[in-house]
C-alpha cells in the first residue's frame, strides 16, 4: 500500500505542475525501475497538438541554440534543421539529464529560465519567447545534488516492482479515464484563477520556507502557487493548510539540502532534513495562531544549531601550535609555490598528446561550442562561412559544370570548437592519524592552498577527496569556486587509520566519470600521503592486505592512463619509501617535500644574483 501511496504523491505533484502555467520546471527523482521514463511518456501525452521535445543526453550546443545556415538553397527544409530543438516547444523532457555534459545542462537551464530563444530566421537573428514546461529525471543515487536546484517542483518516485502497478501509473496519468485525465487537468486549470490565498496561509507558507533553512526566496511563490494548483485539483475555493503541507514536500524539500552538503552526510542528509521538516510541520499544527510568532524565534535558534555541520571533529593536536611550526609552514608554502609552478606547467606525461595543460583552445570534434571559424581543416564544415568567403569571387569565377556556385578549396571554412579551458585536478589527501599526529596536516593544507591559488589563476577546476578511518569522502566535487574549496579544506577532519585503497578507488571512480562526461578533460590526480596503508576497503583487513589492495587499485589507475603525482608527506631521514613505491605502481611522479625545499633554495639563490 505504501508504494501506491508514494506514487500517488508523485502523480499529484505532476498534476499540480500541469495545472499551473508558472510551475514550469519539474524534477522527477527515483531509482532505476521506478517508472520515471513511463511517467515522462505519460506527461508527453498531455500535450497533443503542441510541439513536444525530448532532449537526448548527447545533445550538442548547436541543436540547443540553433545554427546559422544558408537559407537560399531550400528554405523550409534547412530552416527546420538548423533551428534550435527548443523553438516553439511547449513541453520539454530530458530523461537522462545527469548524463548531459555540464555546459549543455547550463545552457538548457538558462534558456528555459530566461524564457527566450534566439532563432535564426531568414538568416537574421531574432528573439522568440520560449514558454515550455520542462520535466527532467534524476537518479536517486545521483551524488551531485546541484542538479535538483533547477526545479520548482521535485517529485519522488518510490520503487515499484510489479508490472501491473507500473502500467497502472501510466494509466493514471495517461489519456484514459484515470484520476488525472486530460479533462480533470483542464477543468482544474479553469478553476485555478479563482483559488484564493488567505493571509494566514500565505504567512504559513513563508514561515515554512524561512524555517526550513532554504535560502531561495523563490520557494515562497512556488510553494503558494503549488498549493493553489492542488486546491484547484481538489475543487477548493481557497487553499487550506493541507495544501501548503503537501506542496511543501514538492517545493521545499529538494531545496533544503542546497547549502548544507556536508561531506559526511551525503545520502542521509535528505532524509534527515525531511524528517526534521515533517516534525516541524506537526509541531506547527499543534500550535495555536497566537503562539505562532512567539515560538518562531526560539525555533529558529534551535534550527541554527542543528543546521551546523555535524562533522566538526578534529584532533586537538592539530590545533596546538608550537612556534617553530609556523615558520615551517611558511617555508613549506613558499617552496610549494615553486613546486606548484612546476606541477602545473609540466607536459611530459600527457597520454593524449595534448600540449601542456592549458591550451588556448582545442578542437573537440562534433561536440562543444563553436568558437570561431578557421580555414584549417577540422571535423565540421561551416556552409554559411564557406559561402560567405566565396561570395566576393562570384563575379570573376566560373562555376564548375552542374554547379550553381563557384566554390574553391581555399573558400572552405571550418568550425573551431572548444570546451572549457584549463585542467581538472583532483586532490586525494591522506587525513589519517599518521598525518595528524606529526602535525603534518597543517603543512599539507598550506601546500594544497598554494596549489589552489595556482589553479584559480589558471581557471582550472579542482576536486578534493580525503581518506581516513574506514572510508574515502568526496569533500568537494569538481568546481572552480575557490572560496568554497578553501572553506572545505579548513574543515577537514583528521585521525584514524589509513584506508589508502578506498581513497584510490574513489579517485579512480571520480576520474573515470569525469572522463566520460568530458571527453577532452584529462583529470590529473595529486595524492598527498605517506603511503602507509593500513586499512582495507572493507574495514578489518591486515596492513599487508591493505597495502596489496592499494597497489592493485593503483595499477588500475595506471591502466586508465590517469596522470598522477604523489607528494610524500614524510621527510628527512626516517622515510619508509612507501610513497615512492606507490608512485611507481601508479606510473606517476614522486615528489618529496625535501626536494621541493632544495629547489626552492636554488630558486632563491638564482633570483638574488
Amino acid at each position, binding site marked *: 500500500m505504501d508504494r501506491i501511496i508514494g506514487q500517488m504523491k508523485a502523480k499529484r505533484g505532476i498534476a499540480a505542475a500541469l495545472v499551473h502555467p508558472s510551475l514550469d520546471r519539474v524534477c522527477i527523482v527515483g531509482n532505476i525501475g521506478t517508472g520515471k521514463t513511463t511517467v515522462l511518456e505519460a506527461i508527453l501525452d498531455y500535450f497533443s497538438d503542441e510541439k513536444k521535445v525530448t532532449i537526448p543526453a548527447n545533445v550538442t550546443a548547436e541543436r540547443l541554440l540553433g545554427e546559422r545556415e*544558408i537559407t537560399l538553397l531550400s528554405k523550409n527544409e534547412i530552416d527546420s534543421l538548423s533551428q534550435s530543438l527548443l523553438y516553439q516547444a511547449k513541453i520539454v523532457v530530458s530523461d537522462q539529464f545527469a548524463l548531459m555534459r555540464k555546459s549543455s545542462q*547550463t545552457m538548457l537551464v538558462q534558456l528555459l529560465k*530566461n524564457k527566450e530563444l534566439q532563432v535564426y530566421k531568414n538568416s537574421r537573428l531574432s528573439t522568440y519567447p520560449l514558454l515550455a514546461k520542462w520535466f527532467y529525471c534524476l537518479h536517486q543515487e545521483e551524488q551531485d545534488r546541484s542538479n535538483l536546484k533547477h526545479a520548482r517542483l521535485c517529485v519522488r518516485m518510490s520503487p515499484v516492482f510489479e508490472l501491473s502497478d507500473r502500467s497502472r501509473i501510466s494509466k493514471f496519468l495517461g489519456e484514459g479515464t484515470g484520476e488525472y485525465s486530460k479533462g480533470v487537468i483542464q477543468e482544474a486549470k479553469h478553476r485555478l484563477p479563482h483559488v484564493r490565498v488567505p493571509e494566514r496561509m500565505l504567512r504559513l507558507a513563508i514561515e515554512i520556507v524561512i524555517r526550513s533553512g532554504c535560502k531561495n526566496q523563490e520557494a515562497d511563490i512556488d510553494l503558494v502557487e503549488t498549493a493553489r494548483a492542488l486546491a484547484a485539483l481538489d475543487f477548493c475555493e481557497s487553499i487550506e493548510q493541507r495544501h501548503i503541507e503537501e506542496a511543501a514536500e514538492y517545493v521545499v524539500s529538494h531545496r533544503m539540502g542546497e547549502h548544507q552538503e556536508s561531506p559526511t552526510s551525503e545520502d542521509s542528509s535528505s532524509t534527515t532534513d525531511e524528517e526534521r521538516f515533517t516534525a516541524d510541520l506537526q509541531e506547527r499544527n499543534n500550535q495555536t495562531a497566537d503562539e505562532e510568532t512567539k515560538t518562531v524565534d526560539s525555533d529558529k535558534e534551535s534550527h541554527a544549531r542543528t543546521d551546523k555541520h555535524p562533522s566538526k571533529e578534529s584532533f586537538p593536536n592539530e590545533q596546538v601550535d608550537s612556534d617553530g611550526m609556523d615558520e615551517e609552514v611558511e617555508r613549506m608554502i613558499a617552496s610549494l609555490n615553486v613546486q606548484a609552478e612546476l606541477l602545473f606547467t609540466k607536459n611530459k606525461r600527457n597520454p593524449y598528446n595534448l600540449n601542456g595543460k592549458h591550451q588556448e583552445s582545442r578542437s573537440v570534434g562534433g561536440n562543444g561550442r563553436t568558437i570561431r571559424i578557421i580555414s584549417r581543416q577540422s571535423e565540421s564544415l561551416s556552409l554559411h562561412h564557406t559561402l560567405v568567403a566565396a561570395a566576393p569571387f562570384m563575379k570573376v569565377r566560373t562555376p564548375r559544370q552542374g554547379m550553381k556556385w563557384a566554390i574553391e578549396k581555399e573558400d572552405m571554412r571550418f568550425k573551431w570548437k572548444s570546451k572549457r579551458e584549463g585542467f581538472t585536478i583532483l586532490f586525494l589527501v591522506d587525513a589519517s592519524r599518521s598525518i595528524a599526529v606529526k602535525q603534518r596536516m597543517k603543512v599539507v593544507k598550506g601546500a594544497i592552498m598554494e596549489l589552489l591559488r595556482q589553479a584559480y589563476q589558471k581557471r582550472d577546476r579542482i576536486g578534493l577527496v580525503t581518506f581516513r578511518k574506514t572510508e574515502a569522502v568526496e569533500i568537494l566535487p569538481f568546481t572552480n569556486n575557490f572560496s568554497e574549496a578553501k572553506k572545505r579544506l579548513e574543515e577537514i577532519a583528521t585521525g584514524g587509520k589509513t584506508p589508502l585503497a578506498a581513497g584510490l578507488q574513489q579517485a579512480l571512480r571520480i576520474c573515470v566519470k569525469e572522463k566520460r562526461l568530458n571527453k577532452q578533460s584529462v583529470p590529473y590526480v595529486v595524492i598527498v600521503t605517506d603511503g602507509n596503508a593500513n586499512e582495507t576497503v572493507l574495514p578489518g583487513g591486515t596492513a599487508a592486505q591493505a597495502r596489496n589492495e592499494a597497489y592493485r587499485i593503483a595499477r588500475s589507475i595506471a591502466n586508465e592512463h590517469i596522470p598522477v603525482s604523489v607528494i610524500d608527506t614524510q621527510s628527512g631521514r626516517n622515510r619508509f619509501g612507501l610513497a615512492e613505491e606507490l608512485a611507481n605502481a601508479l606510473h606517476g611522479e614522486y615528489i618529496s617535500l625535501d626536494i621541493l625545499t632544495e629547489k626552492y633554495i636554488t630558486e632563491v639563490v638564482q633570483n638574488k644574483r
Partner: protein
Amino acid sequence: MNNYPFTAIVGQDNMKKALILNGINPKIGGVLIQGEKGTAKSTAVRALADVLTNSKVVNLPVSATEDSVVGTLDMEHVLKTGEKKLEPGILAKANSNILYVDEVNLLEDHLVDILLDTAAMGINRIEREGISYEHPSRFVLVGTMNPEEGTLRPQLLDRFGLCVDVESEKQVEERMEVVRRRMAFEHDQVQFEKGYEQEQRILRQQIQSAQLLLSSVEVNDDLISVVADLSIELGIESHRADITVINTARTIAAWKQRTEVQAQDIYEAAELALPHRLLQDPLQATSSEKLTMVLNKKIVENKWIV
C-alpha cells in the same frame, strides 16, 4: 511578456539604488549584482528599462555566439547584390545602452575576452571574411550572478563600476508582500501595472531631473583627497576605483537634488564602488567588514556627519 514594474519590487534598496544611479550616469560603469537565487536580480534589471527614457536594456544571453555578439556579414545581401553589408551584433545594439549579462560568471571565456576588449576601447572592431569595420560600442555593463556557481575573472570584476550583494528578505511580512504582488502581477498584468503607473512616472521624472542636474554637481578638493586616502588605506591599486567613487558620489548628490557633493555621498558611493575591488585575494571571503571598519574610522577622523 511585460516587465514587472521597477517600483513594485519590495526591498533590495541597495540594488535598486545602484541600478538607478547607473541609469542617471552611464559613466559610473555598470553594476555587478551578486546574490542567491530568487532575489529579484534579473527582474530588477529588466524592469530598469521602463523607467529610463534615453536608453534601453540589451540582453546578452549566456548562449550567445561570437557572431551574434560582434556582428557578421549579411550573407544574403552579399550573395544577392555582391555588396558587402554588415549585420550588426549585440555590441552594436548595446551602444549607449545598458548591456545586461545574466549569470555573467557562466559566460564563456572567449566572450568575456570580447567584452573586456570592447569595454576598454569603447569600440567594437569586426574583422570577418574580407570585411573590416568598426563602430562605437559604449555600454553600461550590468551583470548578475550567483557566486555559488563559480567565480568571476578579476579583470572582468574590475570592469564593473559598482557591486552589490543581495540577500533574500528575512522578514516574513516583507516576503508576504513579495508573494502578494507577484500573484497580483501574474493574475492581471495590465491592472497591476496601472496600479504602479503613478510611481513609475515619478521615478522616471526624478531620474530625468537628476540627469539634468548632474553636470552642475561639484566636488571640493578635500573630498577628493579623502577618496584617494581611502583607496590607499584599503590597498586598492586600481585608479578606476577613485574615479568611480567620485562619479557615483556626484550622481548620488544629483539624485538627492543637490549641486554639491557631501561626505555622506562619498560614504554611500564607497560602499557601492569598493567592495569588489578589495578582493585582491581570491581565496579570501568577503572583505566588506574591513571596508565598513575603515569607512567608520574615516568618519571619526574627519568628523563627518552621516
